[in-house]
């Protein structure tokens, strides 16, 4: 069971999430390509996972009893890389090599390239099945303390593969109760808003009808998210889907809720504005850097 969240820890996590957003912007502007909206929108959840929820050890990334975090929508890897770096898997400075030649930080994550990565992803819709496979393997080995989390996007629910996975997991029921999926429900994809490109709703009812437990949360409220993870851990009968409602581009005013920021990096000028906003929490506080 994930430990309860005290006020001091919550404040630490919120500050860490902001730091991770800043470093995501820095890595993207240096890389000159990559995805902005998704990584910023998921910074709170990645922070909560690696700094509070996951049972992991950056010094022993291959520890067999670790919890697994599978990133299915690989294109938001800047936030995964940044969180892994801050968690101690590799030096934070290495984030500046994102997408460059000979870097361990591939444009889409590759399991063999970097410690801490559980899979190779980018082509959408295949992460949930891989998380299922890991959960089945851990169950066969009687590793009762290890859980598997799959981070997935809303847009990739247009892929057939993921519905095959949802159906299979529903069939397994309690055998996959150590599997928790977390959906980044930010409503955008490359071509526009999800409900215009290819409607996904009602997502809750769809998952429930396939035999899943479903929890809706505000994906920027770390306390609410951690409470949902605790609830998922307490459900015995079935796997859980946490639908995390997020704001794409969260924290940077000109990126928020704008689907055109799905797949592009900020220019140096935009990055400067973005970092200023993040450091001053949109003008609420003074930045020590300025």
């Amino acid at each position, binding site marked *: 069971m994930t430990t309860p969240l005290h006020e001091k820890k919550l404040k630490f996590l919120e500050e860490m999430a902001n730091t991770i957003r800043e470093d995501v912007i820095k890595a993207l502007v240096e890389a000159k390509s990559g995805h902005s909206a998704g990584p910023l929108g998921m910074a709170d959840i990645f922070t909560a996972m690696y700094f509070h929820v996951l049972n992991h050890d950056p010094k022993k990334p291959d520890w*067999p009893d670790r919890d*697994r975090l*599978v990133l299915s929508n690989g294109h938001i890897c800047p936030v995964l890389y940044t969180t892994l770096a801050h968690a101690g898997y590799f030096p934070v400075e290495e984030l500046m090599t994102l997408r460059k030649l000979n870097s361990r930080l591939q444009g889409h994550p*590759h*399991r*063999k390239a970097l410690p801490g990565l*559980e*899979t*190779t*992803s*980018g*082509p959408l*819709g*295949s992460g949930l*099945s*891989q*998380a*299922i*496979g*890991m*959960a*089945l*393997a*851990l169950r*066969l*080995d009687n590793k009762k303390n290890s859980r598997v989390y799959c981070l997935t996007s809303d847009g990739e629910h247009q892929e*057939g*593969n993921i519905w*095959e*996975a949802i*159906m*299979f997991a529903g069939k397994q029921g309690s055998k996959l109760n150590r599997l928790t999926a977390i959906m980044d429900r930010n409503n955008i994809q490359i071509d526009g808003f999800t409900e215009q490109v290819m409607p996904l709703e009602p997502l809750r009812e769809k998952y429930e009808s396939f035999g899943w437990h479903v929890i809706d949360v505000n994906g920027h409220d770390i306390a609410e998210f951690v409470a949902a993870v605790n609830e998922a851990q307490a459900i015995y009968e079935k796997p859980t889907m946490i639908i995390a409602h997020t704001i794409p581009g969260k924290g940077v005013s000109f990126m928020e809720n704008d689907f055109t920021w799905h797949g592009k990096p900020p220019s140096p000028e935009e990055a400067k504005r973005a970092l200023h906003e993040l450091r001053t929490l949109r003008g609420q506080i003074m930045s020590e850097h300025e």
Partner: protein
Amino acid sequence: MLNKNAKLNEKLFDQGVEQKPTRDGYGEGLVNAGYEDPNVVVLCADLTESTRCEAFAKKFPDRFFEVGVAEQNLATIAAGLGVTGKIPFIASYATFSPGRNWEQVRTTISYNDSNVKVIGAHAGISVGPDGATHQAIEDIATMRVMANMRVIVPCDAIEAKKATMAVAKVWGPAYVRLGREKTPVFTTEATPFTIGKAEVLWESNGKKGKSKKPQVAIIGCGPLLHRALQAAHELEEEGIGTIVLNSHTVKPLDEKKIVEVAEACGAVVTVEEHQVSGGLGGAVAELLAKHMPVPMEFIGMQNVFGESGQPDELIEKYGMGTSDIKDAVKRVARRA
């Protein structure tokens, strides 16, 4: 004459030679692999009996997963198992897996380096009456082109059993191609089998009758090798010497042996139940173009789809019969 060291079935040219599908050998090998290693698990997509996963499923029910008609899920669940200490075998018809799920095999198994064994059953035109939709004739090409993927095409049930047990023991992604129909069992338990090592099955030595030193190397994979041996046998009576090489491992190819027989003969015919582009023939041509350019002929599907019919009828109609192999040998010998 037959290579004694290959320890082939002495009755292989008899009418009554035992016939058995390669998928049966896979089923037996799978159970053996299951006993040998508790990490072997099997996933199937609604074809448990016909892909011969049933015996394993009954012996080891906890290690068998039915995923339903969902080949993308079949590959990707296995990818997760394969990076978490398991040795998953995934079985379906080759047109569906690794056909429909090619990208999942590429990204989540091959590039991801997951220890998954992809079993493509009902490969080749000899699937028969089901017709072209179910006849995989592109799978060697689509698997061979992937980095980090082994490709093995067993020639009979005994070799399929050995191949199944061998891929379970060697780390990494592998593709094993199986046929539906009963085909002659012409190897024996004693026939050597090592992944990546081609075996000479036949070598004319110029001593018997009118036979001459080998002029043409017939390099093949899969059950058609039995027809290649028949062709070699008949050609020897006609005074044309050949070598027949079983290149069961299409990737990694046994480059040394193939270059050696091409050099010894000066001409090559490749034999496979697959499109002539991209499969074993393509692989051999790529190798020889670089190291030992010799005239080649290609037995296989000539850039067409198959159709419904009896397996033997189809093999004959599409130019993969014993007489076709003999004709190809004579054609290529004239070009040498």
